């Protein structure tokens, strides 16, 4: 039987973007270090697609979390002689060679998300993102001013440089921070591991998650453990915004993934059509900006539409 409430009918489709550039069609490759089906990277990709649609660009997205394989994907883009490449530099050493080949082949390359400190050395024309450590430090400051004594920082992929940097940033400001590793691919496992940690150490008063899904899971764990710890997070999505509105989550550090993707592609278009370099030789920071109760309502509308 049909449902009288909810479902697709009840969900408004987001408005289509406006006009379209009449510049000649070009192809841009976006290569990230995302695992398949990651919420954050899905937003980045949507932003890139929005820019591509506007700029009459054919966007080719690919991703591989393994640094060497990601480099192969960049190399494949070079082989295909695309008109521009946007790529992340989570594993800069692995990417150096392939990016160098792209630069040699006179393909404009921009960096996004990670690698703000190295992008220039690689000969890239711009960078859009948020240095992970800086974001981590910002969260650390926030916790400190909120009086945090014993926070935990949940890493959902062991040994991931970006995630480790975020937690290290927090730890620099609040040295009592403990790290908890969870299996990010398994919701029940995340919940029970975080619960166990909260049961093990009752003194934990803050929980920091590194992406929206994990954090929402941590909220459940907090309830299950009967803990009164407060929750903060990196990155947002529609549900997380609701959680902030509802008071389950105190704040989110927003690095505006949609914007990162959008700017990366748009800047290639600007460079190719007009020789512009966005940022003027400096990295363009898309974060860290905080979303909390005070400003969440402004964000909520866009989050629901899937662009924040």
């Amino acid at each position, binding site marked *: 039987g049909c449902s009288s409430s909810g479902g697709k009918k009840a969900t408004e489709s987001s408005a289509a973007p406006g006009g379209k550039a009449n510049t000649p069609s070009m192809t841009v490759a976006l290569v990230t270090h995302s695992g398949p089906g990651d919420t954050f990277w899905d937003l980045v990709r949507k932003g890139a697609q929005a820019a591509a649609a506007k700029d009459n660009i054919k966007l080719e997205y690919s991703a591989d979390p393994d640094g060497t394989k990601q480099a192969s994907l960049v190399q494949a883009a070079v082989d295909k002689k695309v008109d521009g490449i946007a790529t992340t530099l989570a594993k800069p050493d692995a990417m150096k060679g392939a990016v160098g080949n792209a630069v040699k082949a006179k393909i404009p390359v921009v960096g996004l998300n990670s690698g703000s400190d190295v992008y220039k050395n690689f000969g890239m024309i711009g960078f859009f993102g948020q240095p992970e450590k800086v974001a981590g430090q910002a969260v650390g400051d926030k916790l400190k001013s909120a009086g945090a004594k014993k926070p935990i920082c949940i890493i959902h992929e062991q040994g991931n440089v970006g995630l480790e940097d975020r937690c290290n940033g927090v730890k620099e400001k609040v040295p009592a921070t403990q790290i908890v590793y969870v299996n990010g*691919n398994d*919701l029940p496992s995340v919940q029970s591991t975080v619960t166990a940690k909260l049961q093990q150490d009752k003194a934990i008063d803050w929980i920091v998650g590194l992406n929206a899904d994990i954090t929402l899971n941590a909220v459940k764990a907090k309830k299950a453990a009967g803990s009164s710890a407060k929750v903060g997070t990196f990155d947002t999505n529609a549900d997380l915004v609701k959680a902030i509105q509802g008071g389950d989550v105190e704040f989110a550090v927003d690095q505006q993934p949609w914007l990162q993707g959008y700017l990366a592609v748009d800047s290639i278009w600007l460079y190719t059509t007009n020789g512009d370099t966005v940022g003027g030789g400096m990295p363009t920071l898309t974060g860290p900006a905080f979303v909390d109760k005070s400003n969440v309502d402004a964000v909520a509308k866009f989050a629901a539409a899937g662009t924040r």
Partner: protein
Amino acid sequence: MTTATADEGDGRVAARPAYARLLSFPAIGALIGAIAVFVLFMAVAPPFRAIDNSGTILYQASTIGMMAVPVALLMIGGEFDLSAGVAVTTAALAASMIAWQWSLNVWVGVLLSLVLALGIGWFNGWLLQRTKLPSFLVTLGTFFILQGCNLAVTKLVAGGVTSPRITDIDGYDSAAAVFASDISIGGLHLEITLLFWLVLTVVAAVALTRLRIGNWILASGGDEASARAVGVPAARTKTGLFMFVGFCAWLLGMHTLFNFDAVQTNMGIGNEFIYIIAAVVGGCLLTGGYGSVAGASLGALIYGMTNLGITYAGWNPDWLKTFLGVMLVGATLINTFVRRQAAKR
């Protein structure tokens, strides 16, 4: 000169001592392994001792165990299913998207998702029979295909990588009550998955040891050609096992969906090996034909206890995997040692 004929019995067989009979129960090794892990953490991790906290451990063990049971049965039947992990996600995504896309009652999505999950199992079995490839490869193919479908179809339907919200669709509450309820006994908080896990374990254990189908499973895994030669429908038995894996994947998928309200498309990847690990730690042979369901459930418990015990003990999390590796091999060694002792009596 002895003139004893065989009819008078074989005097060479000593009576087995009572404790040896106990030891020959196939899951006993896994049980002792589990007790060893339990005792260890009782000693080193104070929060482990709090009875209230065991709900957390049992929850993790149950979500692994619910799948370890069918995976173990399949392994005893001589086959692997690498798609078991993603199939859980596929089931959850399908249920939510079917209900959402056409604004149907949640239960319609739930039931169609069951059909899909059973269909995936049937497809695995069918492909296995048709291609005669090893199941490792066939289900690897299904694994990749489902992984791709989870992502691509969700993006097409929901426009993102998270399943659409179904909390406000008709039937959500009753479905959540069935698949994701929990009870608290004192401070002890128990999820319904524990019940699912126990029921599945008992049903599968009885089927394996006491039903005709159990005989067929053991024979199909032990020596498929021989089993076929005496008329066991090995092909149908195996397809049935794949479908049972599909059923359990659906059950766990429903729990995940209604407990967490939304699932991401990349969930479940890698879990197939945790299920296999639980089965092997519990004493199932990788080559098929031998193993026990209770053992696999105990394997899941060992995995869950170890994983969370390390957290409870507050050990340096950097070494988490190292501890996990050492403990798994240790528990399996105890298991094997006990079984060998049993065989010697």
